[in-house]
């Protein structure tokens, strides 16, 4: 590749990524040369500004015509922009939490590392949203994963944190291996790693044996990637890792990392398996993705049941949220199963709503656990008496997570319901499971509510609110209500700017 070709690429489309990369380099250099006594919080604020800048440049790219550079390995399409928006908003909020995170376990020393590792992971997630090639997808995935492993073990002298990182690495390794093995089948049959190229080759595939092998490849890729989603059968690491990791990292794993998982799954599923024609018994041809819908439906159902049912028995708030996050992955998988023409909208909106409500909840969890030094749910007792507004905010997040009307979470679930019922073969069973497990989830969500509102406080001490965390709580609470009452604000934005994602494969 000569210089001219290199310069002819429209590098402007990568501005958000470059900004993150630049800030991340800057932070690592600063951390190295700044004297020890300088508070590393400043690095966090620089990182935050960087993410906001990236967000601004991303917004300015909205409406940009679909372009791909570097021989179709990096794509800027509406799908990439829409999901990067969620990643960046989520990333910015998590950074604010991380800045305020103080733990008396010697994390101070490594706080600088925390911020640039975090940005590296975020960069990986963004690359995944934009990649048009199996290789870049996988590199993005690893760029997200490896810093995540280190982040989970940031509290070096904490046993649980160590355990958490260890389990995360081992499970992550297994998942990468499975995914990569599946991808190798795809490459073996298609002869190319480029998603568009694969789609073209697969569009004309007719050898039943090949299709059969691709079916097996699908399972490997899907199960491998379900690690990132924390969905069945690869969900078991989540509670242990969530519990041991520092709270901002838990927030990151449950929101940003999960979103990235859905991004990569959508990319691969639609562009690879959405084009393989399968001839059914009645002679009709449907894409492989639709032929194996029942399997995804099964996994979605299993995920919802496992997450919600086991959550009933948790007393550790972070473990509880781990199971709740498994359950939410299950709900989104329902939308993925349905593959109606609103699937993209439904998943995007749900991930947005989930990012807002879950990060808001984690902001409050971080406040309480830092204050009491324990993660037991009983420390939420009497929160309403100690800090009424905090309790009301937490109430909003929990109502939204439970899917009570008037909140963004309800609209998200409604979208998924409608999508699943709109398609020709409506998924009644799956929707019934979703409704039933949602009812189960009320038990544990309202357990927290009972603690906050109906129990006397054990400790009457005031809770001090750091600026960053307050901003996160305010922003997420207002947005959760806003999108719950006026969901069209978000959905209209999606429709006018992203044109139903028609350029997904162009």
């Amino acid at each position, binding site marked *: 590749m000569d210089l001219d070709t290199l310069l002819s690429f429209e590098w402007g489309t990568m501005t958000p990524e470059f900004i993150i990369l630049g800030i991340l380099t800057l932070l690592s250099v600063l951390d190295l040369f700044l004297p020890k006594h300088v508070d590393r919080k400043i690095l966090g604020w620089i990182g935050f500004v960087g993410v906001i800048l990236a967000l601004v440049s991303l917004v300015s790219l909205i409406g940009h015509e679909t372009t791909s550079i570097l021989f179709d390995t990096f794509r800027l399409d509406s799908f990439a922009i829409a999901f990067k928006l969620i990643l960046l908003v989520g990333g910015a909020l998590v950074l604010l939490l991380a800045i305020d995170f103080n733990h008396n376990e010697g994390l101070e020393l490594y706080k600088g590392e925390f911020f640039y590792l975090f940005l590296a992971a975020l960069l990986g997630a963004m690359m995944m949203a934009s990649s048009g090639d199996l290789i870049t997808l996988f590199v993005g995935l690893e760029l997200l994963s490896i810093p995540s492993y280190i982040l989970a073990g940031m509290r070096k002298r904490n046993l649980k944190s160590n*355990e958490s990182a260890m389990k995360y690495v081992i499970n992550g390794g297994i998942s990468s291996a499975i995914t990569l093995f599946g991808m190798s089948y795809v490459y073996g049959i298609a002869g190319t790693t480029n998603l568009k190229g694969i789609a073209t080759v697969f569009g004309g595939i007719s050898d039943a044996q090949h299709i059969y092998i691709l079916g097996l490849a699908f399972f490997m890729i899907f199960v491998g990637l379900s690690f990132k989603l924390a969905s069945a059968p690869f969900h078991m690491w989540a509670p242990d890792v969530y519990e041991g990791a520092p709270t901002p990292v838990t927030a990151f794993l449950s929101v940003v990392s999960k979103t990235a998982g859905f991004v990569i799954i959508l990319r691969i599923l639609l562009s690879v398996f959405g084009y393989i024609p399968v001839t059914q018994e009645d002679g009709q041809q449907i894409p492989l993705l639709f032929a194996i819908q029942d399997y995804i439906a099964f996994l979605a159902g299993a995920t919802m049941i496992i997450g919600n049912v086991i959550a009933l028995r948790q007393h550790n708030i972070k473990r509880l949220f781990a199971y709740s996050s498994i359950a939410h992955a299950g709900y989104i998988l329902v939308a993925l199963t349905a593959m109606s023409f609103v699937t993209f909208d439904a998943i995007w909106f749900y991930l947005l709503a989930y990012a807002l409500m879950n990060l808001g909840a984690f902001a409050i969890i971080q406040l309480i656990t830092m204050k009491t030094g324990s993660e037991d749910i009983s420390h939420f007792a009497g929160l309403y008496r100690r800090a*009424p507004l905090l309790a009301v905010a937490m109430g909003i997040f929990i109502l939204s997570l439970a899917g009570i009307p008037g909140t963004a979470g309800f609209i998200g679930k409604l979208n998924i319901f409608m999508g699943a019922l709109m398609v020709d073969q409506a998924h009644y069973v799956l929707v019934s499971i979703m*409704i039933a497990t949602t009812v189960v989830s009320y*038990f544990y969500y309202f357990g927290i509510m009972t603690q906050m509102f109906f129990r006397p406080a054990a400790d009457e001490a005031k809770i001090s609110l750091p600026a960053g965390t307050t901003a996160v709580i305010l922003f997420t609470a207002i947005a959760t209500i806003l999108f719950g009452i006026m969901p069209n604000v978000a959905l209209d934005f999606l429709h006018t700017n992203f044109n139903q994602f028609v350029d997904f494969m162009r």
Partner: protein
Amino acid sequence: MENAWLIPLFPLVSFLLLLLFGKKLKEASAFVGILATLASLVYSILVLLERLSEPTYKAETVWLTIGDLQLTAGFEVNQLNALMLVIVSLVSFLVHTYSKGYMHGDERIPVFYAYLGLFTFAMLGLVISPNLLQTYIFWELVGVGSFLLIGFYFYKESAKAAAKKAFIMTRIGDVGLLIGMILLFWQTGSFEYDEIFAAVEEGAVSGTMITLTAILIFIGAVGKSGQFPLHTWLPDAMEGPTPVSALIHAATMVAAGVYLVASMFPLFNASETAMLTVAIIGAFTAIFAATIGLVQTDIKRVLAFSTVSQLGYMMLALGSAGYVAGVFHLMTHAFFKALLFLAAGSVIHAVHTQDIEKMGGLWKKLTFTGPLFLIGTLAISGVPLFSGFFSKDEILIAAWAHGNYGLFWLAVIAAFFTAFYMFRLFFMVFSGEARSEMKNVHESPSVMTLPMVVLAVLAVVAGYVNTPWFGSFLGDWLVEGNEALGHGHIAGPGWIMIVATAVSLLGILLAWMMYSKKSISRDWLSSRAPIVYGIVKNKYYIDEIYNQTVVFGAKAISLFLRFIEIFLVEGIVKLTTAAVQALGKTGAKIHSGQVQTYGTIAFVGLAVLMVIFALTGGYL
């Protein structure tokens, strides 16, 4: 009417204000709440007056776009909505005022009024919703408000449990409603009431589907309105403060189920099976709850079971095509039951106990509450000239005219029980000797008695808007311009009214003889009412018969039904819970923390999927 959407917003503003500034306002918070509901009330009355002469008003705007589907939000003022607005805002306003006295001295008054505001907002929002989806949203919000209010005395373990039970039990019904709603949407392509009814009328929906959706929606109403078998939460919900019971568990929220069935009436009316289900559940609940009411000794629980029973009447009316009768009874019941609860609150406020065995002789001490309670009792017992008489009469006629003879007689017997247990309550509380420990009993302040006076007046006169003697104004107005709702007045045989009067008087008489005898000396009786004296003279004899037959029978039935309730209904609930719990336990056990297990599970999962895939030749 164009600005009717403002009505629910006043209480919402009150809720938000109290949330932000409640701590500073302290007891002055009450005024914020009272003013807000007063504004809603005044506005509601204006809207009702306007609606009397003008056609239905409806305004909508696009709320949510899913694909090419547009969901709307807005409000509608039709006859039923306008009437409900006034009922809800009036009772809410009176309860707000009353609570000023009742809750006096409680340091959490701002919280209480904030919750009341939230609830009133949700309830008013519910009654002006023009479509099912919006109704459902407010329906849930009403549930949240009720959850917070029942659990208000959170330091009581029982209150906490009751709050949770109420929320979960009604949620079970809500799942039915949600599924019914989604099915209806799938069949008709709309959540709008008008469009659904139009589609049903055109025959676009199959008969089975109409029955199915109607019954599913009815399950939602069963949960909210405490109908059998989802009624168990309502008596427990009495753990909340008494004004809350008056507002939520008598006049508004529990009536929401009846309201839902009433506003979906054309759908129900299109299916014989659905109508019959509603009628049977209603009649059964009416008599079932009435028998339980006979043996309760907690003043609020008696009222709670009587509420369940009266709601059963309304369902019976709707299920017997008596749209007007159901809505009419909903209105009169809201007034007299709110009155009874507030009066009960006044009694509890005075004697600090809820056990009627420990009360007695309060008539002379509570000179306001006593007569007011009596008015409520007369109204609910269906004594002629009081409001309950007219509305209950309408229901009986509707049941008869629809050909539900069996259910008609059940309802008549239930009316007898109602009169009996209500007067049993009245006599045990107000007549007889005053207990020694009740020396310092004093009447409630006027801020509490005045709201009761207003309700008492309504409990007497509200019936006259729809009588067979002076014309059925309410009925004619309610069905005006909508033939699907049936006639404004259903003509029935004249003897029904006589039978109804007779059973209610009989019930009262029996109660009086059994529970009032100690307070009235023989001289007093023999000198002033020789005929009554003659009967009373034989009271032992009648008592015996009564004890052998009615009380024993009723007790047996009551015990039997209680048995069903404990072992069957709660058993099923417990079994389900236990199953879920056991599943959770096993699941948690697999989560041993062994990282190799996690990897194994993932691999096994993958292998199972691939084997199934391979064995089925690929594509299931």
